């Protein structure tokens, strides 16, 4: 008999619908990843006990871990589905079912798709951009030494997957913590020669409720980040600057 992969998927047909677990058995092929497994189910949406069901809803786009769409809980852990290889997940244990579930800290849209727009709202509230005068030709930008570039580049690699937020014990609906990704972006833009003009505003924003103070330094973010952003370093640096800014503001504003 050809080998199959057992999958258990936590499903929810809409945000208010009850949660159900559906089991599937998908024909094994070498080098399968979770997104291709889900594609296989879409082609043949029949559960392990023979019931026809709807294809699984989930987000994906690039399929090469760069767009940040496909974060979900795979065997309970938050990671990117497109870079999660079945062979590695099952490592020597092919009968063990793979479990898939939506990220737990974000409102479920449907099945494995969740609404992560809060990150984009956060990026707005910290003004994560360089306020350029305009897009007309104003000549070359100021010089920037490679050392600065090397510090900024890794921060600029954040794919907004929200995994750092999902795994953070402090990111939840009672703290409403902003999460590591936004803090890292503040560092990125504060380091840009022109972007630093908004530095004070960003630092003040981050001292608001849910701001940088809510981090308990659990360091899960930096462990889990698929793009290996130096998140704890950013949190540390940014918090220092927020504190300095608050003290300054206390005496001068």
């Amino acid at each position, binding site marked *: 008999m050809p080998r199959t992969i057992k999958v258990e998927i936590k499903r929810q*047909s809409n945000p208010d619908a009850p949660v159900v677990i559906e089991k599937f058995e998908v024909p094994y092929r070498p*080098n*399968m*990843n979770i*997104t*291709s497994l889900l*594609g296989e189910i*879409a*082609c043949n*949406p029949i559960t392990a006990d023979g019931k026809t*069901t*709807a*294809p699984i*809803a989930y*987000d*994906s*786009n*690039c*399929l*090469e*871990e*760069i*767009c940040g*769409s496909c974060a979900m809980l795979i065997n309970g852990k938050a990671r990117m589905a*497109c*870079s999660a*290889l079945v*062979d590695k997940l099952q490592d020597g244990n092919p009968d063990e079912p793979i479990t898939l579930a939506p990220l737990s800290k974000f409102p479920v*849209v449907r099945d494995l*798709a969740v609404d992560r*727009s809060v990150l*984009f709202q956060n*990026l*707005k509230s910290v*003004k*994560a*951009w*360089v*306020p*350029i005068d*305009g*897009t007309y*030709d*104003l*000549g*070359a930008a100021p*010089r*920037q*030494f*490679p050392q600065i*570039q090397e510090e*900024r*580049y890794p921060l*600029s*690699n954040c794919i*907004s997957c929200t995994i750092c937020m999902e795994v953070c014990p402090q990111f939840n609906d009672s703290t409403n913590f902003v999460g590591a990704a936004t803090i890292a972006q503040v560092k990125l*833009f504060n380091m*840009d020669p*022109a*972007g630093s003009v908004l530095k004070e505003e960003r630092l003040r924003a981050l001292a608001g409720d849910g701001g940088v103070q809510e981090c308990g330094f659990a360091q899960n973010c930096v462990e889990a980040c698929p793009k290996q952003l130096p998140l704890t370093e950013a949190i540390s640096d940014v918090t220092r600057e927020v504190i300095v800014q608050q003290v300054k503001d206390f005496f001068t504003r």
Partner: protein
Amino acid sequence: MAASPRIIVVGGGLAGLSSVIKIAEAGGTVDLFSIVPVKRSHSVCAQGGINAAKDLKGEGDSVLKHFDDTVYGGDFLANQTPVKNMTAQGPAIIDLLDRMGVPFNRTPEGLLDFRRFGGTLYQRTAFAGATTGQQLLYALDEQVRRHESEGKVTKYEGWEFLSAVLDDNGVCRGIVAMDLRTMETRTFPADAIIICTGGNGAIFGKSTNSVVCTGSAQSALYQQGAFYANGEFIQVHPTAIPGEDKLRLMSESARGEGGRVWVPRDRNDKRVARSIPEADRYYFLEERYPKYGNLVPRDIATREIFKIVYEDQMGIDGQPMVYLDLTHLPKERLHKLEGILEIYEKFVGDDPREVPMKIFPGVHYTMGGLWVDFNQQTNIPGVFAAGEADYSIHGANRLGANSLLSCIYGGFVAGPQALNYAKALKPATGDGGHAAELQRQKQKNNQLTSSTGTENPFKIWRELGDTMTKHATIVRYNAGLDEADAKLVELLHRYKNINLSDKSQWANTSFAFTRQLYNMLELGRVIVQGARLRDESRGAHYKPDFPNRNDEQFLKTTKAAFVDGAPSITYEDVDTSHIKPRPRVYSST
């Protein structure tokens, strides 16, 4: 028209975002539609870099040389005026991106660093690590977020463009779009729309493109009367990592550092790669091209790998794959390739330092697209297009790192042009066709949800991809293309008998996909028929039966119109006002 015209931009990749920025800056209001959150658009995938002749390396590079390289690389099929304009704006665009905070790599003195790319002799490619597209997209995304927070831009992320709303005179008055969450279909008024929906790799099943690159929007417009130009020109990259779900790019540098391409001499050889002795390995590129070996030009490598697999039937384990072997390389060399080796390791699970990589050419880029004039306007008044979705700039073949530039350039032209157009637009009579178009789209939806056939859309898509990949990619024969067209007609027929296993009206991804599938099928026919009729070889289009370029007959833009439910192809002269076409010779590269 009102002082502040309303523009809709569809697509939030580099092209879409750059047009949004231009319009917002000029005081217009923009509604930005995108299937995925714009920050997740396909443009993030671009790795290599972006071209501009800034000549910071003292090589005497110039805008004119960049212009010439682009036209020559495109085998003279590109209209030269827009290419000239684009290359002229290149340096300013790089400076702008730099000012926006893109972390471009730097020289020790703090200036922009440039590297060399295919198709040129100059170090002309600016880059930000190995994720240039991502960095550029983010920079534009951030600017758009800024305009959004100032109320100049409204984003409709998770909305899919279904069609344009055309009034009685065929003038565009808005769009119909579907909310992919609530599945609500609505019309949105606009004085002009800009289509920046990227490439159409999904028509080929697996490609290096992202999931939403279906070409669905372009196809919908083509079916509404827009010309689709040069559809047959599809770039295939020689080395991609075949995956279960997509093909991931494996940079040319692997071969540059000494990687060797081979297959077992015996097609039934079941041994693991490393245990196959040297004598039983067929280094087909080295044997067939003793002079260049593994470093033959891209298109030749692509074709040879394709032939080995499909004509000689010598793919590994009968699969469309060949080995790209780095295991013999010394440590220092491998170290230089660290980044791409990690990609392979991550997605295949094997260590390419120990096990030869398995690679195959992959559909990579759509040179063709919506026909546009030099102002990026399609033949439908009020519909503009930019980026990979239009056909301009790249002709028959795109040079590496030129696409990111063309997307931004296209957006920068389309935005202001759309605004100008909209300012001069006369108000619509009646409702401008909104009710009728909405009705038409709702009817399509109803047809799908009420259809009770037996066909699974995902299976039809697989068949589409297999057919297109087999007949319409690297090596094309007229018989095969005819076969492919017949298959497409069959699939279109079977499509009527489709069965949606999910008929719910909430975040129904398979419903949306099934709608796109129809458009893919129609666009597939444009590609196939364009290729069928072009009896020559030019750029990425290669017919062994017609191995030479034929300028007399085919120095022409292919224009497909949707007539009576099928492509009707006409030709249009190419603007060669600046550079006289000359033969494109590979052997010296």
